[in-house]
Every structure is written in C-alpha cells, then in structure tokens.
C-alpha cells in the first residue's frame, strides 16, 4: 500500500444495512460507497460538487456525496440508487424515468432519481417549477431535461 495515514471507524447505515468501516478522515462518501462498499450505482462527474451525478440521500435529504466527509455522517442513514427499488419492484420514479425516456446514457440517472425521490417524498404534487428547482443541481447532457420533468410529474401522481 501507499501511505496509509490515520484512519477512523465510521458507523452508518447504507440502504438499511449497518456498516462499520475503517476510513481515512478525508475520504469522501462517494469514495466510500464506490470503493469500499462497491456500490458503483452512485456516479461521479466532477468530484467537486458541480454536476449532481453523485447525489445520495442522507437521512432523506439529497446531498452531493463527493463533498461529504466521514465526520459528517456518523450514524447517518444513507440511501443510494441501489436502495431505491423495493426488491425487484421499481420505485415509481424509476418506472417513470423508463416510461418517459427520461434517460439516455443513464449516467446522471441515479442522482436524478434520488433528487426526484426526495422531492416527491415530501411533495408528491410538485409543480414543474418546483421540480426544476429541486433538480437544478443535477446536470444532464442527453435529455434536454424535458422528459425528466414529465417523468417526475408522472411519478408524483403515482405516489400521491
């Protein structure tokens, strides 16, 4: 190994599973998810908090996992894209993204789904303007956003 440096124990729950991990204090949650837990559904597009590809839910709130350090999430409940569907049954947001063609390359999709889920969990009847505001931190280069708004509106109707 290279320079190991000091490490600390991090306890948190990821998708309902308790985890106890030995991590460097400056490791990001993104790295912990992708590299330590091999949950590669969470994507990276910039690792600087600019693109929204790495959004996960921390205690139900969408957060950029590339900007979150272990000290901020001790004891937290983290939901990644792998924890959104109910077993084999897709979450209404996931189903709506498929049905509306709201994904093309799919790389922004995990972040989009989680930001959308967080919005609809608290406000299933979100208007198009509210959807735009909630998702404005998630960039997509394929869809032009139009179909994503349609999908989130549709998912909201299914969840209401």
């Amino acid at each position, binding site marked *: 190994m*290279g*320079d190991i440096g000091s490490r600390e124990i991090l306890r948190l729950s990821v998708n309902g599973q308790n985890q106890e991990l030995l991590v460097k204090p400056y490791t990001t949650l993104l790295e912990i998810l992708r590299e330590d837990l*091999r949950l590669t559904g969470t994507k990276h*597009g910039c690792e600087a908090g*600019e693109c929204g590809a790495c959004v996960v839910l921390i205690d139900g709130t969408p957060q950029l996992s590339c900007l979150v350090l272990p000290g901020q999430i001790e004891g937290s409940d983290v939901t990644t894209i792998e924890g959104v569907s109910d077993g084999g049954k897709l979450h209404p947001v996931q189903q709506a*993204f498929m049905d509306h063609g709201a994904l093309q390359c799919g790389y922004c999709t995990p972040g989009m789904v989680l930001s959308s889920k967080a919005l609809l969990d608290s406000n299933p009847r979100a208007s198009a303007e509210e959807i735009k505001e909630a998702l404005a931190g998630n960039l997509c*280069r394929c*869809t032009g*956003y139009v179909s994503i708004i349609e999908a989130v509106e549709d998912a909201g109707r299914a969840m209401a």
Partner: protein
Amino acid sequence: MTTVANDPNVELRVIGKSLPKVDSAGKVIGLTAYADDIELPGTLYCKLLRSHLPHAKVLSIDTSAATAIKGVIAVITGDDLPIKYGIMPTSEDEHALECEKVRFVGDPVAAVAAVDEETALAACRAIVVEYEPLETIESIEHALLPPSDEPIHDYAGPGNIHRIGALEFGEVDEGFANSSFIREDVFFYEGNTHLPMEQHSATATFVGDQLTLWSSTQNPHYVHRALAKVFEMPMGHIRVVAAPHGGGFGGKCDPFSHEMVVCKLAMITGRPVKCTLTREEVFYVHRGRHPVMMWVRTGVSQDGKILAMHFRTALDGGAYGSYGPASMLYTGALQTTTYNIPAYRFEGVRVFTNKAPCGPKRGHGTPQPRFALELHMDKIAHSIGLDPVELRRRNYVKPYTRTINHLRITSCGIEEATDRVIEASRYYERKKRLGHGLGFAVSSYMCGAGLPIYWNKLPHSECVIQVDRGGVSLYCGATDIGQGSDTVLATVAAEELGLWPTDIRVVSGDTGLTPVDLGSYSSRVTFMAGNAALQAAREMREILVGAVAEKMECSPKDVVVGDGKIGELSFEDAATLAQLRHGVLTTRGTYAPPREIGGRYKAAGVGPSPAYSYSAAVVDLDADPYSGEIQLNKVWIAHDIGRAINALSVKGQVEGGVYMGLSEAMMEGQLYRHGLHKQPSMLDYKSLTFFEMPEVETFLVETVDLEGPFGAKEAGQGPLLPVIPAVVSAVYDALGVWVDEVPITPDKIMRALDAKAKGREGRYGPKSFPQISYPTIVKVPPFDASSTAF
C-alpha cells in the same frame, strides 16, 4: 433496397412505438457497469503527468524520484510508446506520451501505475520535466502568420496550416454576374466542448499474448486499429470492449493517450491497469467543436433564387490533427443539402494552435457554417424585402435530386418540417413587441458518412443473429452511447421475428465478440447497422418460417409471424424445430453505402451519405433591451426522421439536440488565456440547467426513406443544427440587432445595442475575415453518374 417494409402504409407491430429503451432497466437501478465501475482483481491505478506549458520543447524527464515512491509499480514516458497514431491516416501526429515537445496545456508526458490513485498522483508530482518554452499560438490569425520560432508540427504547413483547400462547382463568377443582389457577411463561432457526464475511463489487461481494453469509447473498432499500430500486434490478439457509455457527443471518438498508456502499463506490470480522467483532464482531452471564422457571399436573382455562393472558413484546430481534415471539409459540404445552390465555391483552412485539440462534436463541422448560412439567409431576405421563411422556401432542395457538389438527396421533408413549426408557433400571427422575438432556421444532416475513416472496401456495418434454445442474440460492433442504438437494433430484429425488443439480447461494441461496425459517429448506426440487423433478421425469419411451413404443410407465405409466434408454434418451439433441422441458427447482415451517393473528385469523401435528415425550428424568446439577458420561452422543432424506429427515443434525441444547441448558442465556449483553459470545470464552463431549458414541442415528419431500415433516418445530430441560428435570429427579431457570433451572451447583445444607439450598424461580430492564401481553386466537373467514387 426498396422493400415492402418501406411502404409508408405497411402495418408494423413494434417499429414506431414509444417503448422504454432495452438498456434502461439496468440504468434506473444503478446496476449498469460503466467503464469506471469495472474493477478487476489486483487492479493498479494510473495517472498521467500533463504539461503545464502550452508549447515547449521537452529537454529531459527524470522519473527516478517517482519510481522510488512506495506503492509505485511502473513509470513510463514517451520512449516506451514511440509509435505515433491518430484517427485519420493523413494526420497520425500523436504520441501517447510526448517526449520531444508539448503542444498544449494538458499534453501528457509521463504515466504512473501504482497501488492507488493517490500514490500515482504523488509519483506524477515527483517526476521532473525540463522544458524550453516556445511561442504560444492562440488564435487563427496568429497561426496564419509565419511562426517566430518553429511550427507546432513538423508536417503539413506552410507554418501552422494543417489543411487547406479550395473547390468550385458550377460557374460561380457567372452566377454572381447574373445576380440582381449580392450580400457578404462575416461570422464567428466560438469553440465548445462535449461535457459528457461521464469522465473517460479505461482498464486494460494483458494475459498470455492477449491484450484486452475496456473503455468509454464510441468507436471500439478504430481504437482496436490504433492499438494494433502502436503495439505492433496482430488485431487478433487485441480485444476492445466499449463499456456502457456515459455520454459521448463525439468526445470519445478518437483513440486516446490514456487508452494506449493503460495497455502499455498492463503489459509491463502483468496486472490490470485502470485510468479514469478527472473532470479537468476531460476538458484537456477535448476533441470538441472547432472555433470557426466564416465569410459568405451569395448572389440571388430578383425573385430570391440563389445563383451563386462563395463560402470561406478558417478553423482553429488546436494542437493535433484529430478528425481535422474531415472537420475542415465539413464546414463546406452540407450548405447544398438544404438549398439549391447552382454554383458554389468553398475555400477552407484548418490551423494548429496551442490549445486542446478540436475534433468532432455533435454535428461535426456543420453547426458553424449552418449558423452562418441561416443568418446570412435572414439578412438577404431583409435586404431584398422578402420574408425569411419565404426566401428559404424558394430555394429548398427537392427530394431525389443531386446537389451541385454531387451529393445524392433522397427523401426530403424540409417543406413539411417548415410547415409544422411555422403553423404550430403561429409564426405569422404574432404581435410585435420590443424584446420579444421568434427566429426560424432549417438544417440537414447525414445518416452516416459515406466513406470509412481509413480507406477500405469492406462493409461499414455487420451484424450476426444467433437463435437457439437459449433465445435470440444479436451481435453488432455498434456502440450504444446513450443514443439508443442497442434499442434500434433490438427493435428492428424484433419486428422481423415477431418478438418484443426486450426479447432480443444485444451484444454490441466488443471487437472480440461482435462483427465490425465502424462506430457511433456521423449518425450512422440507425441507418447502417439498422440495415445490417434487418438483413440478418429477415434471413432468420425465413429459416424459422420455412421450418414451420414444412411442419404445417403450408406455403411459407401463409405463416404469420408476430406476438411471439411463428405460425401456430411459439417462437421457442419454432426455433427448436429449425435447430433440429439446421443445427445452431446463425444469420448475418452487412451494409455498405451505395456507390452512387457521392462524386469522384478529391475531397469528395466528406459529405456523401445514403440519406439526409431535415430539421426546422422556431425559437421564441424574450431579450431584455436593458441587460441583454435572454429568457427562452419555447422551441418548436420538426424533424424528418424518415420513420421512427422508437418514437420515444427519437423524441429524446430531438429534445437533447435542441438542448445542446440552445446551450451552445447561449453560453458554451472554450476560452483560453496565455494557453491556459479558463474554465476547466463544470461550474465555470456554463451549460443550460433545468432552469433555463424551455418547453420543447417536437414534431416527427415521416418521409419513409426508400433505403433506411423501415424507412428510418438519423435523429442524433440533425436537430441541434437549426436551433443555434434560430436563437440569434430571434434576438434580432426582438431587439433589431445582429450578433454574428455565438455564444450570444448579454454583453455582446448590449454592445450591438450600444452601436445602434450611437448611430452605427446594430451589430456585434467579427469585422473582417483574415487574409488567407488559399490554393488555386480546383474546378470540379459536373456530376457524372457513370463515374462515382464508391
């Protein structure tokens, strides 16, 4: 290839439906493994050391301190990878690692494989490179001057000229002499980048004598060729796998340094080696939209018919050749596919500068001249007192005609596309008010390049379908980069075999498993790979129907195929029956463009395509006369898709093209200062977000092309093209000033308004086109059907 399937009235079961893409289920649950998600046991991690100088000789590289760092397994420099490569055979000017000189900030000079990225990065920092700085060339004008020390490259030339050419079709001087009105305009299109959400990533293994590379590439076949050249290995010992793809837009079309480097490091270390670029590196790798200066002169008759056009372009190519020879020609090739231009002269030049290399971005070389041409048409219309839409209509090409530069036009929905957006936007019914504007523009794009990038007579697309008791597998080298090519291939096969698209297992983009397809560029997959899949599927259908007809003791034409059944048998039973008779069932399809699609002159390879898509757009916006801020209200777009294979996917491609066009028009630009990229981050490099994106109303015009699979044409690139000029035209409509340069930012609008307020021309844009010594014009004889290039 006229077939019953291309009858516009034929009833189709799955073609044209709005169905989820076949690969979307994995993507919504986060299970799709993109290139950086691939993690092999024992992987080493690679980082590249890149030049911090824009132009410099490399005097020495000392890697000893890096090698001594604990956890560093291997360090390589250009000496380890001496063979040059490049996507175009005429411009193989790249080393994976440069050891003699660097040509832009970001040019790689050394690479490290270590136990983790952190260690690899620390080792890169410990490498000592001694440079001797050279003059930095940063603009087209500067590159056209004789270099004060040495040119950026020691080939091509003179000076920093990479490619230069001049062609003439028809009698241009005569056309101008007969014109009752002549207009000249100058435009500038700032360069911009693809900004795919996924950073490029590659992993290589070398086991026995077999090299395998998994990469986020759009063109595994061309990477395969480049690896064979660089490593002097037989192609049969190399396998390139295009991993599920996180966005390309042309940015992952070249063979890249990091791909060569991980292969070399895997050979040296015997372990898997992975390299994932940082976002900053993605900006340096670039290969995006060329900045282009343009000058256009057009003569029209009294009734607005174009009689002659002279188009000049100068492209800022950045530091390497990339697709540059093609890019340069594309800035002059497709002006003729929307308007009937009876006499046409094109002069183009591409220069090297010390900036990240430019290449193909969505629309490759055509958005820039399209922007110029459409605004030029607007200005001609205003000059001669004709409605801009009417001027265009008077010059539209007709279906099944030949352009003056020998391009074969087949199906053409430009008239209908125009009607749809003009009607839907109530273009003629709007009430004029200051600050509100509508802009209209049209465009055309290819359904695949007519020639491969390297000269060969082989098919452009090949496809194999295999059926056994395990189901249907379709193998094709095409790469799904998110545009939905796997879905297109599955849908085409499903239609023929009476199945559903998700019943077809598509294996694509793997040079070890799939027959060659040239790649996902030039909007070629639906038309070319789609036709290959159709041929293979039809042959498979015949085999299955034949077996069932024999059992049912009826004629094959009485066997109905559909809903998972072949005649009275389920598909599985029919497949088993046929397999008992023939063994494992495999069929194949191939596609090569027809010979007669283009001409035979030098440079005729750029522009020909088996078909052209057509788009028309109206943009509605508000432009604030006091701040220059633009608020996009709505875009209407009509696209001649031939026939939609999957209407939902086509709508997605169209909306995505509109978005990217708006974003380029409004804000995207690659800016440099002293050779340094000014905004190599997603925050500083602005792109449209949910907030700025307006409503889009999409109309699909179905002209049912006679040669497209089920009549289909492309959707991936064409719909971007009319959007950019339509935005600028709408700003003129709103404020009465021209901004002849994109992106059309508020400061440019304010400067044009200031100029107008001071009594000068209400315009912002380049004042003149550079003085360029173009070569003697090659006068191309008229098209001769008996003598074609293909």
